[in-house]
């Protein structure tokens, strides 16, 4: 199925590469939270700009899919625009900005505010898939630690946070335990989004292109954010509400208005904000 316009195969990748990625995806779903190595391809975007997520989406997407792409929660950030345009061009699929209408949502750094539904697939772009990497730089050793479930090291990091800052100071890419077994990086989503992974009805797929790893959280999997009994996991809250839609339950971006330090807060999820404000798109 070659697109006449681009001269490339449907959704860019050749079918052999897609099969290879789907095999890795199946394994990832079978072993939740386990990082499956795969022979990632060079994509026409730079590594670090979402090539892992793009390969996962390319391997999954069919002509009937409806694709939503967000970066920082918004459909209109430059990289989200660029990736959405890539799939419109190479696969000709329908795209949407409405969370509820999408069958595949590729994301960088956020999970949408609207609860996901059964049948939806979240595809995450992952820069560093290894949650132990900052503590143990060697891949050989971290793979052994995962295989043996030796996670004392991960708690050393949390301990250190508390003794230094009085709290667990990891604000994004906050490590989670999936199905009581593997410790996993949820990608750099704010910890605010971590609870959305727990027993989510959607399928969550994570692609790390440069590091060549794929992992998954299947629907309804228990996902626990690591913590101590006496320092339980908690999400960040704002004293402010969204200046556009008034939401008090969403993740807020801070917008600096002038040099005098005036600022206001707006929803990071542009679709959620627009929906609440009752308009097709957020006001300019």
């Amino acid at each position, binding site marked *: 199925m070659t697109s006449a316009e681009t001269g490339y195969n449907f959704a*860019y990748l050749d079918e052999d590469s897609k099969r290879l990625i789907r095999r890795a995806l199946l394994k990832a779903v079978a072993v939740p939270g386990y990082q499956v190595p795969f022979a990632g391809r060079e994509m026409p975007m730079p590594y670090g700009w979402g090539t892992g997520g793009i390969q996962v989406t390319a391997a999954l997407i069919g002509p009937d899919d409806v694709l939503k792409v967000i970066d920082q929660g918004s459909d209109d950030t430059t990289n989200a625009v660029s990736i959405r345009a890539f799939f419109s061009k190479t696969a000709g699929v329908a795209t949407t900005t409405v969370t509820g209408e999408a069958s595949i949502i590729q994301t960088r750094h956020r999970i949408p505010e609207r609860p996901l539904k059964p049948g939806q697939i979240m595809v995450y772009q992952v820069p560093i898939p290894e949650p132990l990497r900052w503590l143990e730089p060697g891949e050989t050793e971290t793979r052994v630690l995962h295989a043996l479930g030796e996670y004392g090291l991960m708690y050393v990091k949390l301990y250190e946070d508390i003794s230094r800052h009085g709290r667990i100071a990891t604000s994004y890419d906050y490590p989670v335990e999936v199905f009581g077994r593997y410790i996993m990086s949820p990608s750099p989503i704010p910890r605010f989004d971590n609870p959305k992974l727990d027993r989510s009805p959607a399928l969550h797929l994570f692609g790390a292109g440069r590091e060549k790893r794929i992992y998954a959280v299947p629907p309804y999997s228990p996902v626990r954010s690591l913590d101590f009994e006496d320092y339980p996991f908690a999400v960040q809250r704002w004293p402010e509400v969204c200046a556009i839609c008034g939401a008090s339950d969403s993740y807020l971006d801070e917008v600096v208005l002038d040099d005098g330090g005036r600022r206001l807060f707006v929803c990071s999820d542009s679709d959620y904000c627009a929906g609440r404000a009752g308009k097709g798109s957020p006001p300019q």
Partner: protein
Amino acid sequence: MYVAVKGGAKAIEAAHRLMAKRRRGNPELPGISLDQIREQLGLAVDRVMAEGSLYSPELAALAVKQARGDLVEAIFLLRAARATFPRFGYCLPVDTGTMRVERRISATWKDLPGGQLLGPTFDYTHRLLDYSLMEEKEPAGRDGPAEIKGPGMKSPEMKRPKALKALLGEGLMEAEEDDGREPGDITRQPVDFPVDRAGRLQNLARSDEGFTLALAYSTQRGFGSVHPFVAELRQGTLSVEFTPEELGFPVTLGEIDLTECETVNQFKGGGGQPPTFTRGYGLAFGHNERKALAMAIVDRALRAEELGEEIKGPAQNQEFVFSHSDNVEAAGFVSHIKLPHYVDFQAELSMLRQMRKAANDDQR
């Protein structure tokens, strides 16, 4: 107030138009042709082919042109194209001993079968800017530089046996035998550490020249001990053969230029083994001497574990080398921090505010 994240599509479009304009430069000057790039910026084309892992002077020249001379960008363009090309199969292994050499030197033997052949090299040029090249364009025409005659040039077709064969016969050089195993393909199979030598060589062959050069240099300065002699450096032309399934016999696909470097290194024997020399190996598309030499040194450094040597430098650490040598990966990841990180930064900002508030409350 929402301007910061709106209008992404328009901005991207405008950026593309600006880039196209910049690429063309002053439109009053003639555009540069792919032929000119291939013929007159040949070493740039060679580097792009080597690190782009695709032997195609034409596409490499196109990439250099499109990337406005940014070679790392050109390498990326070629790689991305390569990833989509269908594969018919693997060519037969080339025997570099049958190379029609244009240049062939040995630093270990004054003379050797086949002789030394200096060939085209920057080595003995004085690095003085040649102001005569600033003069008007060199005119095109049939009269190129005269045929060059010199010692060794009389029989460029002459086969020159590999220099290291001399040592092999005496048993002074470690033997490298084909164990018949099919080598892996790092672009098709996931990499699992430790990576065998075939995989490491594939990685080094496409590794960034600057990175590889710096690693090789670091071993010479004591961060890992490699004491190399250049046994042979050869550069020239070879035929590539392929056996189509339906034919069952090899056919020649064409000719490619290669640069190959083999180093001899000291190795104290042990475990009842008499001492032998060991070797490092480097190979690059085109004329790519600096790369082939650096690759041979790093290949040898990476054999530290296999040879029971103390690991004391980054060049000997295969995870370090393998994971950081690829400039498409490195340039991508370093540049990705230009992407918006509003969300993560916001998370850090509010965490910091909370912590400072808590600290202030404590003081009170």
